[in-house]
């Protein structure tokens, strides 16, 4: 395949009257002899003969790619940029809630401890009776919770003993529902939903 690329000047016209066309190109011949002339309309033998005689370059009924003006292009770019910014902001907001500086802890939360975490927390140990865990983001506890939990994230995942005091978005969760298995607790359409993650969860240590 051999390719060449040219930039050519194009004059576009629509044919209505043969004589008018011939006289126009006769007078402006010097201007148009290096142009590519795009003619819309049927070409009569008279016109064809004229074009051949003058050795004019032409295309008949060709569709030209329409370029947009500079101003229109700039406007379009501006709109696109605004849209991307909006999407990015939405994503940022969402990710703020989905994963906000995750803390990973493997310490036993003992009685009397009052742990506050601004973002998300992944706790690989127990929360003992008498301890309080206050988490602004999402919470996952892989071992039994017997203490108090205050969680304000999108969801929390835990296994709680009936002794535990679990508050999710200022609502006390009936923790009989959380017993003996890992549960996902989330806020959807203004109601708290509790779904067991698995019947039995064995964490690979």
């Amino acid at each position, binding site marked *: 395949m051999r390719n060449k690329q040219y930039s050519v000047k194009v004059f576009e016209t629509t044919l209505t009257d043969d004589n008018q066309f011939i006289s126009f190109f006769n007078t402006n011949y010097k201007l148009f002899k290096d142009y590519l002339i795009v003619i819309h309309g049927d070409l009569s033998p008279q016109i064809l003969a004229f074009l051949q005689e003058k050795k004019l370059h032409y295309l008949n009924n060709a569709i030209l790619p329409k370029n947009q003006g500079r101003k229109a292009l700039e406007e379009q770019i501006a709109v696109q940029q605004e849209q991307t910014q909006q999407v990015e902001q939405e994503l940022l907001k969402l990710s703020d809630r989905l994963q906000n500086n995750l803390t990973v802890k493997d310490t*036993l939360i*003992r*009685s*009397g401890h009052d742990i506050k975490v601004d973002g998300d927390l992944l706790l690989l*140990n*127990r929360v*003992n*009776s008498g301890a309080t865990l206050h988490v602004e983001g999402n919470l996952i506890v892989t071992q*039994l919770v*017997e203490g108090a939990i205050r969680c304000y994230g999108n969801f929390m995942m835990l296994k709680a003993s009936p002794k535990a005091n679990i508050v999710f978005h200022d609502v006390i969760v009936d923790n009989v529902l959380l017993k003996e298995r890992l549960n996902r607790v989330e806020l959807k359409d203004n109601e708290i939903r509790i779904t067991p993650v698995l019947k039995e969860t064995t964490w690979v240590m």
Partner: protein
Amino acid sequence: MGNVIAVISGKGGVGKTTTTANIGLGIAMNGKRCVVVDFDIGQRNLDMILGLENRVVYDIIQVMDEEATLSQALIKSKMNDKLYFLAASQTKDKTVLSSEKISKLIVTLREDFDYIILDAPAGIESGYEHTIEFADAAIIVVNPEVSSIRDADRAIGILDSKSQRVKDGAEVAKYLIINRIDAKMVQSGEMLSSDDILDILGINLLGKVPEDRGIIDASNQGKPIILNPSSAAGQAYKRIASRLCGEDVDMPELEIVQGGFLQKIKGIFK
């Protein structure tokens, strides 16, 4: 350099002082120089359990305030010549304790003894904090019931934040003694099993001591139960003391009720 071990529990009445007395005597029976120090200022008990109440002349506060020398205040046990006792003051209260004075006393005791056992007061007040402040290790005594476990958990939390070793970036070794285990009650589920307790507290088990009615009489007589070879609790304390002295002693299962003849026969056919 001696080893400073604080005996703590959080909750009162779980057998902290009894444990201190028996472990102290047990360590001395293993041939190590051991001093037991009563840190329960204002409420001393350890002297009675060790049978030394009639021999207390000077107490720990007088030593700290330099009203008496350490050798004057140390009481040598008649039961074992490697065991010494330093009494708590019965008239003052725990507000007279200060970190500098305690530090100085413990440095002196470290030079003289292999093991320094501190009997902490119940609770988590300043007296408790002073007891654990300069300890290398702590023995946590619990009973298999929830309130004792929660209080012990709290005490461990304070130990992990207030001890000098932790402030220096090191760790305080923590050993658990489960006291007053009733095999029948554990099996029927009325008492927490030791596996549950170890799960909750997350520290190493040093030993289990069964419930033993003989302990009350032993305390009243001032003869620690460890001296009684027929007592199950006494034998348990003996094993614990040997473990503290670095011996590898196996841990018999105390939570299974020994079956009668019929049950044994059934066991064969299982």
